[in-house]
């Protein structure tokens, strides 16, 4: 299994995501934002957290226009798997690979803490190692994690069981407590919480590890 983790100039969780994938048995390549193609034989693309281009405008807006994101969008169109975490989720929304937008947190402050999440569906290659309804603890760290979507969009997400995670105790004002959503083909996941920060005992919790393990299992089988 091979993963590619993107590197924007302001990515700062790229190394953490690389190690999250490696820990689950992936070979990982890092891909520079100015590149126009992904390496051959990639099973999944990781879009990591950070501040892609400083995010002085809307978070992820400039990254969405970067050369490598065109390649990632193509990869997804052809059925490739993509995981976007935190800033990566913002980038995926800005490229319209996922619906909705991420606005400034309702309390207008950056928030970093470990947060209880509810696994809303186990029907995806990312979440199949969890039970639907299971509560897990995953760190969050963001200023703009307030997920918003229009009424029709929310009906669609619910109807298609595409809400991957919800917050048990909404920290940012997200509509319907949404913490992560899936694409229509269920192969693209964007989430604000950082599963890669909870994969080893030393992190104080390992609830993120099943996500990477599930991916490894799903992609081997594929």
């Amino acid at each position, binding site marked *: 299994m091979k993963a590619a983790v993107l590197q924007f*100039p*302001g990515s*700062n*969780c790229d*190394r*953490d995501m690389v*190690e999250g994938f490696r820990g689950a048995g992936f070979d990982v390549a890092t891909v520079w934002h100015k590149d126009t193609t992904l390496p051959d034989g990639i099973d999944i693309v990781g879009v990591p*957290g*950070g*501040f892609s*281009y*400083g*995010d*002085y405008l809307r978070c992820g807006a400039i990254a969405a226009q970067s050369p490598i994101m065109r390649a990632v969008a193509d990869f997804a169109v052809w059925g490739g798997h993509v995981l976007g975490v935190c800033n990566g989720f913002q980038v995926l929304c800005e490229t319209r690979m996922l619906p909705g937008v991420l606005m400034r947190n309702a309390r207008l*402050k*950056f*928030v*970093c*803490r470990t947060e209880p999440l509810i696994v809303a569906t186990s029907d995806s290659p990312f979440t199949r190692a969890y039970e639907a309804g299971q509560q897990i603890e995953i*760190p969050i*760290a963001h*200023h703009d994690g307030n997920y918003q979507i229009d009424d029709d969009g929310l009906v669609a997400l619910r109807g298609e069981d595409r809400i991957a995670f919800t917050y048990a105790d909404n920290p940012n004002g997200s509509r319907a407590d949404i913490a992560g959503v899936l694409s229509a083909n269920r192969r693209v996941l964007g989430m604000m919480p*950082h599963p*890669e*920060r909870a*994969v080893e005992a*030393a*992190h*104080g919790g390992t609830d993120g590890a099943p996500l990477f393990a599930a991916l490894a299992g799903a992609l081997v089988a594929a």
Partner: protein
Amino acid sequence: MTEPTITPEIIAAHGFTDDEWAEVNAILGRAPNFTEMGIFSAMWNEHCSYKSSKKWLRTLPTEGPQVICGPGENAGIVDIGDGQCVVFKMESHNHPSYIEPYQGAATGVGGILRDVFTMGARPIAAMNALSFGQVDHPKTRQLVNGVVEGIGGYGNCFGVPTIGGEIRFHPAYNGNCLVNAFAAGLADTDKIFYSAASGVGMPVVYLGAKTGRDGVGGATMASAEFDDTIEEKRPTVQVGDPFTEKRLLEACLELMETGAVISIQDMGAAGLTCSAVEMGDKGGLGIKLTLDAVPQREENMSAYEMMLSESQERMLMVLNPDLEDQARAIFEKWDLDFAIVGETIAEDRFLIIHGNETVADLPLSKLASTAPEYDRPWVETPAAEPLADVPQIDPIDGLRALVASPNYCSRAWAYQQYDSQVMADTIRAPGLGAGVVRVHGTNKALAFTSDVTPRYVKANPVEGGKQAVAEAFRNLCAVGAKPLATTDNMNFGNPQKPEIMGQFVGAIKGIGEACLALDTPIVSGNVSLYNETDGTGILPTPTIGAVGLLDSVDDLIAGTARDGHVLLLVGETTGHLGQSALLYEVFNREDGDAPHVDLEAERRNGDFIRDNREWIGACTDLSDGGLALAAFELANAAGTGITLDVADTATLFGEDQARYLISTSFDKAEALMIAAGRAGVSIVTVGKVGGEAIRIGGSEAPLAELSDIWSSTFATHFG
């Protein structure tokens, strides 16, 4: 370009005394021009020259087998074994933060991060020690919000975990808040970069962001007292760009791998001037700069402005000319400026060319080495008046008052605005004493803490100085880390007042004694003087940042108290209430002496904790608020009640030093008692863990009630 005529007003505005100005003229054998005057003022102000403090800083212990590089470079370097080292320093950004809190604090973080990565170290941890005025002062709310957001805004984007710090409130900081930023980085011991230039005719390269007019004269501003013209000083505060800093970090580390860097120095206070002089002076070389080549983001900048600009995210480097193309390519990859702006020269000259004209021609070594040094008059701080009677207080009432006070409530409101987990190596998050990060890719870890109790320092500078080091030592021992070394950030008032200078001298003496006794040499530091507004000084605040090593993450003491545990108090209790938190918060009194620090006991008790970690369930050191507050903190972290078999106010709230509170099972408690007997360490049982209430003496309250107050107080004030 026409330069202004130098008038006595302009000379005074640049901070020169009459004697200093005469000295400048004598060194040159002529009158300096306007640009040259600016360069001298930048090098000779208190902030850059340490002219009032040098004499005393030299007395600090700075050596030890663990020390690779002590004070004098951008940051101190300490060996952590296996070919790796930790590089760290703490620095103040007090004056800018008071004038413009967000940018002041942000650029404080940016500056200290650059100090660390300019030496070749990747930053792995940051902390911030903050002092604000009283909570209901009209400026405090804005300052707290702005400073905390600025720290988060910069550190979060840059991508360094902020894992600790302090926040205090006291009216003495009403007109001068303190923002002390700490950063630590990790490097290989054979890949450290220093600032000394070498080789004649080597290219001097400018790296990073473009130069603007921001911060012109910042270092001079930071060396003056405030008065009611403070609003006029806002343009001297720099603006931070953490995204550029992040790229500068990655580009510099990549560049260092190539072998192209002969020496490198970040541009901090007094920007281009200070960095160029530093590199030349340390290398025994002259420097020639051509300002036309400096990347500029504003038009028509004068030589004076460029030499004194404090634009952020810039570095100066002496380059190996054979690798120029490779070096340039790295900076182009990261979309950063890379410009050859000068060269090293053999003569002792600091030669500045602008528009084909020589705009400054100064003897370089004199700029640094002949900076004035003062032996300022000082008077010993008089012994504190003895403590007046302190009435007994209901233990729960006393505890409730502490947890409801802005000084001792939870700091989560602030530290949750900082990313404490980026890099995925944080193994002990903020809020529980020292923060701990794993050394990436190894099983080792580093612990970080910052401490000082300014009330103590004011009452008794020597004991207060000792106490700051001792408390830092204790915080490290309480998580099982071996204290390695320290950095000092000395924040004081006007050194031209003998009583303020006396505080400084006393604190240095205490810090020196403690660092020697506890084997934690000072390896870096910073002095911030003139923290006064309209003639009133701050509490003397020598912040100590300390670093400790855990050989294995398994050695971390990070457990929580459990139902059925017993509570053991390590260290002697006499019930010292002078200058205590209880006295200040409950009785609104600041009298009595600071607690005495027995450095032998500190060392013995700290060693005892580390040597016996296997018997320890949970551990916390005792500091402000004494036994009662420490017990509450253990109970709160565990979410379980405790009972203390003590009712006496002095015993519960006294702040005797060298003490730890341990929670552990009955069997392990016995083993600890035996070990303590052997080690000559005082240990007593003071209570037990269990239930849902805090019971002290005959009094009690539900833990949930006290925890709610503790958790919500900060937001109530600053929301």
